[in-house]
């Protein structure tokens, strides 16, 4: 309970302690304040007021703990119990931390042990924190004074006098610096300050190399064998049944300098279509397949997600990110979704040992569109 009386400038009506509050005083607080309320902007010229009068703050109602010392004592014990529960939560956390060790668990028990540890630690920490909060709020709501206090609010605008003085001070300062008169200093200072930003921007140049032609080519080269991803085996045409799907990468990619960068561009998918499903292929792509086996870039032409979902019945490739749908029967033309261009096709052939190989690199940049792509 506070009974300090500091007479602050901020508070128009100093609240008495709860037990000594009289309803009349509070009423007066509201009423007094009302008298200084701004007149409503509507004109009040008629005999009847244009607005209903502000009745002021409603009368304060006492809580049980304000009038009944026994009730206040009960509230006090409740607050103390909540603080006590918090201490128990802290103890639970400490005990759980040392008693439950996921590191000792066998591999098959690891997930269960980590789960138990997380639940116990969370329960301990959660109780510890929550009960402190509950205790503080219960204390504030039941035992601290709950009569509303009125404070004065001044307009944000400074007084005219303050404004005049502020302007005078600035003018005096500006005159002292002579910015208006000494144009040479002003202009050369602007000339020195304006290009300072360049010093922050220019050193960023080495954040990365310039793009150059890096986005146009991939690790696929004529004669590169197709290997399955992630197993890494070369593939023979006869190994792929009709309707079969294999995720592929070019042979030797795992040894390249920037493996992930190369994989991000070269990743492709191989699908074997039945002869009757090949009738709608573009004329200029004749001979790009090996007995119905076609290969397409797996990098979506929308924003670059791997187009990984193949619907075997409809021969559609679906991007799981934004649902662009490509029709494999028609050289992966876009039939739905936000992608604008077909997936680039990889021309296939076989090498002397009968393994599937690329006949050439993709004949266009793979992945999302960009300005200088053409």
């Amino acid at each position: 309970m506070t009974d300090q009386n500091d007479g602050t400038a901020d508070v128009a009506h100093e609240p008495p302690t709860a037990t000594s509050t009289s309803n009349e005083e509070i009423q007066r607080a509201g009423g007094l304040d009302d008298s200084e309320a701004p007149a409503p902007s509507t004109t009040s010229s008629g005999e009847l007021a244009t607005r209903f009068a502000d009745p002021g703050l409603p009368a304060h109602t006492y809580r049980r703990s304000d009038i009944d010392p026994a009730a206040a004592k009960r509230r006090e014990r409740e607050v103390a119990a909540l603080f006590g529960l918090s201490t128990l939560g802290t103890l639970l956390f400490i005990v759980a931390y040392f008693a439950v060790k996921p590191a000792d668990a066998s591999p098959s028990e690891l997930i269960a042990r980590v789960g138990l540890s997380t639940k116990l630690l969370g329960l301990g920490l959660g109780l510890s924190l929550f009960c402190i909060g509950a205790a503080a709020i219960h204390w504030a709501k039941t035992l601290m004074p709950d009569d509303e206090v009125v404070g004065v609010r001044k307009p944000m605008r400074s007084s005219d006098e303050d404004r005049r003085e502020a302007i005078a001070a600035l003018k005096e300062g500006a005159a002292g610096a002579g910015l208006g008169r000494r144009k040479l200093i002003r202009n050369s200072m602007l000339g020195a300050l304006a290009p300072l930003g360049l010093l922050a921007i220019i050193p960023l140049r080495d954040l990365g190399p310039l793009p150059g032609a890096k986005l146009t080519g991939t690790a696929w080269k004529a004669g590169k064998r197709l290997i399955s991803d992630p197993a890494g085996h070369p593939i023979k045409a006869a190994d792929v049944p009709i309707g079969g799907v294999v995720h592929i990468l070019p042979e030797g990619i795992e040894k390249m300098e920037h493996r992930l960068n190369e994989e991000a561009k070269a990743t492709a998918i191989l699908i074997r279509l039945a002869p009757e499903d090949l009738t709608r292929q573009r004329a200029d792509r004749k001979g790009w397949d090996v007995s119905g086996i076609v290969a397409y870039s797996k990098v979506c032409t929308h924003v670059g997600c791997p187009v990984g979902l193949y619907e075997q019945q409809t021969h559609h490739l679906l991007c799981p990110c934004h649902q662009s749908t490509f029709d494999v029967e028609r050289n992966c033309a876009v039939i739905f979704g936000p992608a604008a261009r077909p997936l680039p096709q990889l021309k296939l052939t076989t090498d002397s040992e009968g393994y599937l190989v690329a006949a050439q690199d993709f004949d266009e940049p793979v992945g999302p569109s960009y300005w200088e792509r053409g």
Partner: protein
Amino acid sequence: MATLEQRAGNAANEIDERFGSANFVKRSARKIFPDHWSFMLGEIALYSFIILLLTGTFLTLWFTPSQGEVVYEGSYVPLHGLTMSEAYASTLRISFDVRGGLIIRQIHHWAALIFAASMFVHASRVFFTGAFRKPRETNWLIGVGLITLTIIEGLLGYSLPDDLLSGTGFRIAEGVLLAIPLVGTYLSFFLFGGEFPGEDLIPRIYTMHVLLLPGIFLALITAHLMLVWYQKHTQYPGPGRTEKNTVGYPFFPVYTAKAGGFFFIVFGVTTLLSAFATINPIWLFGPYTPTQVTAGSQPDFYMGFLEGVLRLFPNWEIQAWGFTLPLNVLIPTLVIPGLLFTSMALYPMIERWVTGDNSEHHVLDRPRNVPTRTGLGVMAITTWLILLAAGANDVIAITFHLSINAITWFFRIAIFVVPPIAYVVTKRICLGLQRRDRDLVLHGRETGRIVRLPNGEMIEVHEPISETERYKLTAHQVPEPIQLEPSTDTNGIPRRRVLASKMRARASRFYFEDRVPPPTPSDTHELESSGHH
């Protein structure tokens, strides 16, 4: 031994002699804070931010921000032998080998979601109650800035573990950067240090996530709170509450106890949630590799609306003069969000221009009393929700066994049709509520008691409402639309800026044409003198 009061007095003296703090304490200890449950929404955001700082610092002690490759040999056997980045491996270590690591990681992630969600709801509260009006426009702008930064900070944060899901997020970010005309490829190469994914991204976004952005957050949040303190909090309308006072509880002790206690409540609830609800189990997703993706990839909810626009937008792309302009990426990810956030930021200025209201406002609006603003707000939220749902169209399709194409087309049409309907319906509901308030003031509350008069007439007895309640229902102002000024002034000289004043009159009509003025004492007087009650 000195009494407690003496010792406190000595300490206070030492401090005051150095900082002159008595003056501040004198003015501030009993500063009045208006009280309402909706004022806690911003507090939740603030406390979540503190939780994020605390748990985030803890996580940095073990996290390795590196894309260097390692072969995993840690506790989690299913991933043994896999090549992964050190970032992913160290996140596995935090989850499985650091005691309490998983609970802290989950608190960090849940707190981020709660941070974003509470900011959205807090901004809605500020919008619907008109708390953004003069003199608080600056704080609204800071708030919009904070929300924008939160989306970026969240994306960076969930990308750090470098798991398959989050890596896909940055693959999409690369596609977005590439779509920017002229400089897209340069920006992408500078961000990734070359081609995607490169080896520089994780260390770079780590610095942004743990240092640069939190620093900006801290500065903006401090400014936000200082303005709340300095300009004093708004209050809801009611008897005794005016533009010239603040009615509420003193900062010390009531507000200190309530607000301080609420921090512990928010922290406690977030912790309990994190103890029992798993979030972002990265060990199930596996390490990032650009050749794989999981079906049903979903970003965190605050990115959902962006994902939605990206999924709905038609596949337009312009190829001309040897250049490509991918409108299908550029418009949904950069132009539309830019317009949305700009209009949100500028709304206080727009409304002030329409209403011509240049006065300070500290008493809040009841949303029903500003039907057009409330309608616009609900329209914006409806748009956001449709986009959020559209961002999960694949999940909806799988859950309800529907065609993904049909759902997408449904959303493509709904985004144009539903928000205007939401606007009209909300505005009508507001006007209806205002009429009901008017009815209550003029005719009182229905008691359900039917009385038969001597002349046989049956009437229901209405009970007048209390003075307090009546004041609450009639304290607001309802402006009339601004009338179009004549094109010449009184001296017959043509006015300048006729077009602007025409636009303003039209906007004002849009805002205030449908109005239900609050009843006045003369209204009740007329009713009483006509003998009708």
